[in-house]
């Protein structure tokens, strides 16, 4: 079975990551694995840990309108992670070649005790 067909069969599959994050596999628009991580809020501390997976960039939307949250994006080898500072959603895209390794790493970072403190 091709990787993309396998991924297709997983769409909608939900599982827990740590105590307070729920992951759900989604269909990506490209040839990659997309997972939504809902929970949080994903604090500055959580994003600092996720930044270990690549290079982080911040778009300071709160400077445009204080109600907006700053957007954070981490780009690493085989993975792209998107979300907002103190947001309740992290969206991750994993390239096929390093899918398992990167997913496990990301989920271990999300579920570390410090992350679980998730206020």
């Amino acid at each position, binding site marked *: 079975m091709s990787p*993309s067909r396998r991924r297709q069969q997983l*769409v*909608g599959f939900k599982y827990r990551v740590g105590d307070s994050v729920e992951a*759900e596999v*989604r*269909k*990506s*628009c*490209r*040839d990659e694995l*997309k997972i*939504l991580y*809902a929970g949080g809020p994903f604090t500055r501390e959580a994003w600092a840990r996720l930044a270990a997976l690549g290079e982080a960039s911040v*778009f300071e*939307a709160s400077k*445009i*309108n204080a*109600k*907006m*949250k*700053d*957007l954070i*994006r981490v780009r690493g080898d085989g993975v*792209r992670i*998107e*979300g*907002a*500072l103190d*947001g*309740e*959603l*992290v*969206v991750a895209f994993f390239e096929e070649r390093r899918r398992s390794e990167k997913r496990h790493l990301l989920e271990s970072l999300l579920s570390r005790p410090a992350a679980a403190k998730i206020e």
Partner: protein
Amino acid sequence: MSVAVDIHADRYLASIAGEPHVFHCHHYNCFLQKSITDQSALLDVKSLLTDAAAEVVYSELTHLNAQSDTAQVLFGQLGFGVLDASALTPQGGNATVKGSHYALGWLSKFGKSSAPVCFFNAGFIEAAARQKFGAAFKCVETACVANGAAACTYEVKPGGRPSLPASVGLGKLTDYAPRPAKATQTSVDESAIIQACGGLPLAGTAEGKIDAFGVALTRQYSNYYNLISYRFDQQMAAVAGEAATTAARMLLVEAGQVCAFHTFGGIMESAEWEGLIKPMIKTTEDWVYGMVSVVNALGWGRWSVAALEPGQRLELVVDGSYESNGYLAAFGSSTTPRCHLATGGTSGLMNLIYHANIMSRPALTPALYEKTFAEGRFFVAREVECRTMGAAACRFVAERL
């Protein structure tokens, strides 16, 4: 190096060298294309799709006075993949595209294709060759990732149409009337959203991908959509009469619904929505305003909520829709409404919010699409006033069936 994009903030449009561009994702691009290619028994769909691309791209490259690698840079910047046309000579040759938006999009949406699908790319490459060498060329995709090939490959040969029709550029523009009072009766700060969207990474990466709003975006040529849609309509009428043109228009509206369901839906489930728009939302109706605000950053013209009965009815006014701008300039006036994308978008928006409960973040699967647009009292939309029929602006109404 990148090619400058001109933002026409007063008209909610964007252009490059006078050629308008709009954001759309692969769901719309591929569904619209498939709506046309499904009629291949009646029409020369390859020429229809490729010729339109060649015309608009050639116009843009000519106005840009494109130098050696401008076309390749532009192709990636617009999110179509990575084009290598360096081997082309005045005698033609081969070009390749890695990570083709159309091929990967088709695979993702429809699975393996029985034939190459990158007609837009072929037209783009044809235009690049014409502009670079100052002669007529024809381009055909000979191998396609969507068809199982390892790479998308194109063969360019001298010949084809001696010259290409001029593009209508930004089309027939108009001054906008003041917005309806209802347009600003929300806690959603549209101007902040538009400003924030302008700060997002909306140019293609080194891989020729636009990574924004969690969907596979392109900054496509407005006039490409217009030419393929309205020529499709015309050609269907010519070969198969009134019933065929009615079917064609229904397909074009459905392409708009597909766009709304997947693109609007994908945006509402994205990290950007979570960070930029959701914090401003207080009511279910604000989801409508939030999405309209994002649309107003996409280069589609100015969308305004004119009336909104929660859960029942939406009336949108669109000033300077890219569809009407292009239709009026290229085809003249019309006796029927012509903004098919916006019509489907209006019903799609209401169905997402009041029928599919997008607020619960459902998986946007084909099954949910079928359920949303076929079961229960779903919303249908119609364009009740259109600039192509003489109105000052285009007006759309979505109501429950």
